[in-house]
Every structure is written in structure tokens, then in C-alpha cells.
């Protein structure tokens, strides 16, 4: 790690990693090609992007991506301590001081959970905008009937990438929230396994590179679900890149989850029983339990298709069975929906009492409802398959288990309404986003039962209604709460305040645009517009053409609003007003620390839990006690140059 | 100390014998019981039993609960 201190462009972890990826790719390509030459197999194909052959055979490209990923991890430096341990060399347990300081530390390996949290959040925003950009491309195509400027292949690639890259962005966003906040909220100085934490973040970068390289290697045609037999017969090499990119993103999810669970179980502060943890920690824990277990199944199913393509195995085509893939795939991908939304719902429950100045209504029920959702979520996967031709006797049980999800979700809604009731609400940007999230998640929730009920789903399956439904769920369960969290904890992370006017502008652009987009999608869906098609039946045009145009305009407005938010964050981090330690009068322990938070969080002065977490407005109540010697001393405003991400430009 | 040590090694020996006996039982059942349609049930049951012994005695799953206080010797 010492050589990193010298500085210079090539000392940046990200740059070293990318170089490593390129080297690994070349080695992988060469290795397989030479091996095939030795074995007397056809080693190369013509370079012909039209026919989707790219000089090297598919196995060589896959080997390149795998070795590229490994080389990336080796060169970025997150694994070096593990190699020392293998040789029997001891390393310091929390060596934060050995890493870069200032803005540059966000671009290099660090074991500090706060740096990793910011890295997750930043990457999430970048990937999120990229996925949104893909959406704008194919949304513009749909604005009018007929094909405008994309061909069918490009259209397929764009909507597939929009879906899967969004999912990666959401997983990264969830990682940002749980990595940054869980240790702070439970009073730990770091995660249980800091090196694993860094590894779990950095593996996402080569995963994203691999995933995106599919654009150049023939594109994708299956949609984000990658169903065989199409994903198996597709001649495009992009399919293989898609499978392995997602596989490594999933590995990040698994290892991150492992870390969150261990941290929560083993590292809580004195007095913090499970029923005194903040709700956000509960939801992060429930999320991690899904991520730890179910994610393996999507990894397995994608590997099996990849083996079909590479080694000619048979699982899902010919005498195999494509329904098996769907079972394996949805066993992850349905619970994954709860991975996406649970932390968001936890954020809502976390922020609502702060802005309503009232205790959270029904704390215990809300805490347990997160686990209720996670558990029931494991038993509902086949509701995605009502029309797939699976055994028909499975339909009704899965319908009932699906509708059962409404119970724990309803508990959350009752709690939110009960918390709002009679509260003294204030309307800062995070508060607005929380309220917006509740209204949108209600729409997402209410549009769910028609899809969960077999009889109606037979009509709704694969229409734009479904697209509208899950966009409402994702915006209400993740996007709005995520932005709420970003605005809410921004002063804590950067030490500076964001611009309130721009924040409100973001909200008031995004909310109506979202409603136009999602309700519009539901409408065209009910009128017969199918999802995943580049062009629609001309007979439909009189009914849906206007709505399609409106959806497209709304999509651009959403894009604009996100751009405003990002500009707000970047500029405020550099030049914003210096923030006070606790701008929201929160009771949460992380707000008892100065902003930005010092490297070792609570250091040798851990707090003790002495009360309930959400007793806002009750006189004389306190949640945590921080060593009185230390707390006032550290309340001083942070130094200007401290560690704001963009402060050095 | 010596007593404990003997006992610990003894557990290993006992579990090995049980595992090998069950494996031979499995092998015979799988190869010579000529009823393909139902033989999976006892075979899976035997596998569960074997796994139970390994997880309990070889992997010391109990240490997950008692690990912080326990001394190994």
C-alpha cells in the first residue's frame, strides 16, 4: 500500500484496475486461442460485427472477461492483505491511515466503510444515469409509431441494458446506504470484514465493464431476464458478457450481505438490543439475508446457460427444460425486488419521524414486517410464470402467497400514516422525497394484486401495464427514498449543505413526470401495448400515440431532474454552506458526531443506548449517550479543506 | 485433560464408523434394492443423517452459539 502515497495518475486504484483488466483480457484471449491452436481446434473467426463474430471465439472472450476481472482486483490492491495472510504475514486490523486522503481516496482502494459507502453511492449514480440514458434512447424511438432511428437489434440491446444496468445501479445504491449507515447506526467503528467490504465494492467495476462490453460484442436480445432458449441460441457474444457481468455483480451482493449480517449481529453498541436498532438496520439485515442466499441461484442459472453456450451442455433446450431456468432465475429475481425496495422503505420509516417530530408508529411491527416481507418474498417467485407453461397446479398457491405480501407491506403503510397523523411536518427536500415515495409506492402496491391474481394476470402478462407497475414500485421503493437519503445524509457525508432550491426543483420536476410516465405506461398496457417491442401495431396508434409521446417527454423531464440533482451534489460538496453537525435535529447516533465523520467513527468512545430510537417530541427522552467529555469538543465546524469529495478541483 | 482428549478422539472414531457403515448401506440399497421408484426416499434420509453427524460433530456447529466463552481444550 505504501507506493500509493507517492501520487501520480498511475497510482490511482481505478486506473491501475482498468489497466489490469485490459492486461487480463489480453492474456485470456491469448490463452484460449493458443490452447485451441495446440489442440487443433478452430482458433479464430472472421471479424464481422454484422454476423456477430469478433475474431476470437466466444470461449476466448469469456476467459478474457474472467481473467480481466481477476487482474482488476489484483491490481486495485484490495486483495493484497489476503495474500500476506496466506504467507503468514500479519497486517494491522483497521489500517485506514495507510490510504489516500482527500478526494483521491474515493478513486482508490480503502477499507473505511464510509469511503466505501460513498464509492458505492457515486458509482450507483453514474450507473443510474447511464441506464437512464439507455432508456431515453429507446424511449425516443417509441415516441411515434414506425421505426425512427434504431434498428431492431439496437432497440433490443438498449432496453435489455436499461433493465440490467438499472438493477446493478439499484444494488449499488442499496450497498451505499447499508455500508455507510449500518456501522454508524449500531455504534461500530467499521464493518466486520473491511477487506471483504472493499472487495465487494471493487468487483462491481469489472462487472460493469464486462456487462457494458456486450454493446460492442453483438448486443443483447433477450431482455434483462436472459431466458433460454433465446439466450442460448443467440449468436451474439454479448450474451456471454451479460451472464458473467451479472454473475460478478451478484458476487458483490453476496459478500456485501455477508458483511452486513455479521456486522449487525456481532458489533452492536452496548444496550442496543435487536428491538432498539434503527428501522433502517432492520431492513438492511432483512435485505442482506435475501442477498446472501437467493443471489446464488441467479448466478447458477446464468452459469448454466453460459456452459450450454460454451461447452454444449444441455439443461434448458432440446430434452432439457426451459421452465427450470425460470424457476432458478425467479427464485432470486423475485426476492431481489425486496432487496431493491426494503432499504428504501426503511429509509422512509427512518426519516418520517424526524420530519413529523413524532415517535414512529408501531416500531416492533415495522421492524418485523421487514422480515415478514423477506420471508414471504421467498415463496412467491412463480407468479412471474403464470403464463410460462409450468405445472398449472402451482398457480393458485403462488397466487395466495403473492397476495400475502400485502400484509407486511400494509403494516408499513399503517405505520407511516400513523406517524404522519397529527405530526408537525416540515417540508425540506428529504421530507418531500419521503412523502413522494409513499404516494408512489402506494400506486406500485395497488397495481400489484391484478398481476398477482392468475385470472387477471393472464391478460396483463407482458403488457406495458407490468412495466408501469414495476416502475412505480422501483421509484417508490428505491429511487425516491434513495434521493431522500442522499439529501438527508449529504451534510453528514460532505460536511456541507446542498442547495435547497435546486433540491426542491428536482422533486417538483420528478414527481409529476414520474406519474405521467407510470400511469401512461399502465394505460397503454391496458389498451394492448406489449412490452419489449420496438414498434407497435398501427391499429393501436390512434389510442396510444399521444400517451407514448407524453411518456417520452416525461422520461426526459426525469432525466433532467436527475441531472439537476447531480449538479447540486457536486457543486455543493465543493462550495456549499458548511453544515452544522445535526441539521435535522435527529436522534440517530451518527448525527452526534461532527460532519464529516472522523475516520474511526466513535473511536475509543462508543456510545451506549439508553432509550427508544424514535421518541421524537417526548420531553427528556434520549436514544444514545455519547461520552460527554468528547461530544462537545468535537462539535466544532469541520475544517474547510477537510474531505469533501470534489473539494480539490 | 487427558480424559477430554481421549473423548474427543473417540468421537472422531465413532463418527467415522457410523459414516462408513451408512455409506455401505447406501451403496447396497442403491445397487441391489430393485425398486427405482421409491429407493430415493431412504437414500436421501441416509444422506441427511450423515450430514447431520458431520455438521454436529466434525464442524462443531454449536460453537456458533457458545464460541465466545468456550475454550477448545
Amino acid at each position, binding site marked *: 500500500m505504501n507506493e500509493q502515497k507517492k501520487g501520480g495518475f498511475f497510482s490511482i486504484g481505478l486506473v491501475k484496475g482498468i489497466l489490469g483488466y485490459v492486461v487480463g483480457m489480453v492474456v485470456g484471449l491469448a490463452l484460449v486461442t493458443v490452447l485451441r491452436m495446440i489442440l487443433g481446434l478452430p482458433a479464430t473467426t472472421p471479424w464481422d460485427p454484422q454476423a456477430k463474430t469478433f475474431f476470437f471465439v466466444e470461449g476466448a472472450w469469456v476467459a478474457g472477461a474472467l481473467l480481466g476481472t481477476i487482474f482488476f482486483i489484483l491490481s486495485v490492491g484490495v486483495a493484497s492483505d489476503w495474500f500476506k495472510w496466506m504467507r503468514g504475514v500479519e497486517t494491522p486490523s483497521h489500517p485506514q491511515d495507510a490510504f489516500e486522503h482527500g478526494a483521491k481516496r474515493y478513486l482508490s482502494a480503502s477499507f473505511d466503510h464510509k469511503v466505501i459507502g460513498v464509492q458505492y453511492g457515486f458509482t450507483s449514480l453514474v450507473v443510474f444515469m447511464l441506464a437512464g440514458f439507455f432508456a431515453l434512447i429507446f424511449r425516443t424511438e417509441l415516441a411515434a409509431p414506425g421505426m425512427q432511428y434504431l434498428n431492431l437489434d439496437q432497440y433490443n440491446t438498449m432496453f435489455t441494458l436499461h433493465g440490467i444496468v438499472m438493477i446493478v445501479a439499484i444494488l449499488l445504491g442499496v450497498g451505499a446506504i447499508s455500508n455507510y449507515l449500518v456501522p454508524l447506526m449500531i455504534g461500530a467503528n467499521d464493518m466486520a470484514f473491511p477487506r471483504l467490504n472493499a472487495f465487494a465494492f471493487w468487483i462491481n467495476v469489472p462487472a460493469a465493464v464486462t456487462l457494458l462490453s456486450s454493446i460492442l460484442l453483438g448486443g443483447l436480445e433477450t431482455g434483462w431476464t436472459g431466458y433460454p432458449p433465446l439466450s442460448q441460441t443467440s449468436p451474439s457474444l454479448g450474451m456471454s458478457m451479460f451472464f458473467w457481468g451479472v454473475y460478478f455483480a451478484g458476487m458483490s451482493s453476496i459478500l456485501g450481505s455477508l458483511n452486513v449480517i*455479521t456486522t449487525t449481529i456481532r458489533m452492536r453498541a452496548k444496550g442496543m438490543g435487536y428491538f432498539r436498532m434503527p428501522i433502517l438496520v432492520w431492513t438492511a439485515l432483512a435485505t442482506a439475508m435475501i442477498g446472501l442466499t437467493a443471489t446464488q441461484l441467479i448466478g447458477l442459472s446464468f452459469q*448454466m446457460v453460459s456452459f450450454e453456450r460454451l461447452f454444449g451442455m444441455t439443461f434448458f433446450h432440446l430434452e432439457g427444460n426451459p421452465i427450470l431456468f425460470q424457476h432458478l432465475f425467479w427464485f432470486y429475481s423475485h426476492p431481489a425486488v425486496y432487496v431493491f425496495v426494503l432499504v428504501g422503505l426503511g429509509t422512509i420509516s427512518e426519516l418520517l419521524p424526524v420530519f413529523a417530530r413524532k415517535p414512529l408508529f408501531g416500531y416492533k411491527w415495522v421492524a418485523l414486517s421487514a422480515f415478514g416481507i423477506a420471508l414471504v418474498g421467498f415463496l412467491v417467485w412463480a407468479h412471474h410464470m403464470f403464463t410460462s407453461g409450468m405445472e398449472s397446479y402451482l398457480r393458485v398457491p403462488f397466487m395466495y402467497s403473492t397476495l400475502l405480501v400485502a400484509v407486511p407491506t400494509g403494516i408499513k403503510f399503517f405505520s407511516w400514516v400513523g406517524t404522519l397523523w397529527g405530526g408537525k411536518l416540515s417540508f425540506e427536500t428529504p421530507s418531500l422525497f419521503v412523502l413522494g415515495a409513499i404516494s408512489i409506492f402506494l400506486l406500485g402496491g395497488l397495481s400489484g394484486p391484478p398481476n398477482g391474481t392468475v385470472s387477471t394476470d393472464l391478460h396483463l402478462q407482458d403488457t406495458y401495464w407490468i412495466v408501469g407497475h414495476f416502475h412505480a414500485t422501483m421509484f417508490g421503493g428505491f429511487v425516491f427514498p434513495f434521493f431522500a437519503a442522499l439529501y438527508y445524509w449529504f451534510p453528514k457525508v460532505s460536511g456541507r449543505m446542498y442547495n435547497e432550491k435546486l433540491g426542491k426543483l428536482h422533486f417538483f420536476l420528478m414527481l409529476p413526470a414520474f406519474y405521467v410516465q407510470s400511469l401512461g405506461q399502465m394505460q397503454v398496457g391496458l389498451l394492448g401495448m406489449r412490452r419489449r417491442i420496438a414498434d407497435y401495431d398501427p391499429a393501436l396508434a390512434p389510442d396510444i400515440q399521444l400517451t407514448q409521446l407524453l411518456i417520452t417527454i416525461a422520461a426526459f423531464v426525469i432525466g433532467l431532474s436527475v441531472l439537476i440533482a447531480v449538479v447540486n451534489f457536486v457543486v455543493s460538496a465543493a462550495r456549499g454552506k458548511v453544515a452544522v453537525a445535526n441539521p435535522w435535529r435527529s436522534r440517530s447516533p451518527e448525527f452526534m458526531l461532527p460532519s464529516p465523520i472522523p475516520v474511526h467513527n466513535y473511536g475509543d468512545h462508543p456510545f451506549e443506548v439508553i432509550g427508544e430510537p424514535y421518541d421524537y417530541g417526548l420531553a427528556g427522552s434520549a436514544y444514545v449517550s455519547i461520552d460527554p467529555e468528547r461530544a462537545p469538543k468535537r462539535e466544532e465546524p469541520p475544517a474547510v479543506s477537510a474531505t469533501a469529495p470534489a473539494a480539490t478541483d | 485433560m487427558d480424559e477430554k482428549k481421549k473423548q*474427543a478422539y473417540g468421537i472422531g472414531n465413532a463418527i467415522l464408523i457410523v459414516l462408513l457403515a451408512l455409506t455401505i448401506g447406501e451403496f447396497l440399497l442403491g445397487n441391489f434394492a430393485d425398486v427405482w421408484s421409491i429407493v430415493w426416499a431412504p437414500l436421501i434420509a441416509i444422506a441427511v443423517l450423515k450430514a447431520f453427524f458431520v455438521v454436529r460433530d466434525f*464442524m*462443531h456447529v454449536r460453537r456458533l452459539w457458545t464460541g465466545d466463552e468456550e475454550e477448545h481444550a
Partner: protein
Amino acid sequence: MSSVTTTLNEYRRREGTNRLGLWLFLISDTFVFAGMFVARFYLLGSGTRPEVSQELGLAITTLLLISSYFMYTAETAMAFGDTRKYYRSLMVTIALGTLFLIGVVAVEWPLAHYDGSVPTSIFFLMTGFHAFHVLTGIFFLVIVYRNSKKGLYTAERHWPVEAAAVYWHFVDVVWIFFYPALYLIGGVAG
């Protein structure tokens, strides 16, 4: 900073955290193997199985079980400070593990005639994943062996030995389920 200076209490705490992490990893890994196990019955049912050598199956299964026994003995010997017995048992474990790997990859695989059909695909998928885990387990054991020779572990502080042992037994448990699934349940098709 380093564990040399930590108290035994701190070491135990850290060990408990590591242990939980390891078990969570194993639970996660179980889902991969369970997925393959389910896929095998989904595609082949309980009436058919891949075409394999029964004698070889019994032999390698026995080898792996015995290796687990020696792993247990090695860990116990370490906990009681029985150094010579520890090294001997660990060596035998590594040797048996390697024999198992050779039995599967070098003997069984060529015999199984890979032809891309469903039964052989299932067979190679499941044995391949398992063999990969055996291989990593052997690496793990060799590293632990080398570090023991450097005198890094004592009767009180030997978490890496325990971790390697638990991982090795886990690989054994997986095989306990894969053996009947691949070798015993069902008759050979055709």
C-alpha cells in the same frame, strides 16, 4: 495492532465474528449446490441417473469421508497441542483430498463420456463445481500447513486451522448429498 498483542479474550471475540462470517458463506454456498441438486431431479426425475462407475463412486466417497475424519483428528490434535499427530493427520487429509480429486477428474471424467446430453451435463456440472471446491479446500489446507510450520498457531489460537477444517467438512457434506443423487438414485437411461 497485530493479533500477537491481543488478549485471548479479544482473539475469541474476533474468532467468533470470523466463524459467523464463514458459516454465512457456507449457507450461501449451500444454495448453489441445492440449486444443482434440485435441477438434477427436475430434469432427470428419480428414475434416471448418469452412467457412472459404481465401484469408483464408492471408493472416492469413502476416501472423502476418511479425509474428513483425519481433518477432525488434526484439528483436535491442534487444540490439545498434539503437534506430531496434527501434522501427520493434516498430511493424510491433503493426500486423501488429492486422491479424491484425481479419482473424479482424471479417472471418472474420461470414463463418463461427455456427450452434451442432459445426464452427462448434470454429472459434469455437479462434479465440476464440487471438484472446484475440493481444489480450493486443498489450497486452503496447504496454506494452513505451511503457516503451522512457521509456528503461527497454538492450542489457544488456531482459527485458520478451524476455518480450513470447517470448510473441508462442508465440501464433504456436499458430496454426501451428491453421491446418492449422481450414483445411486434411479437407473441408467436406456
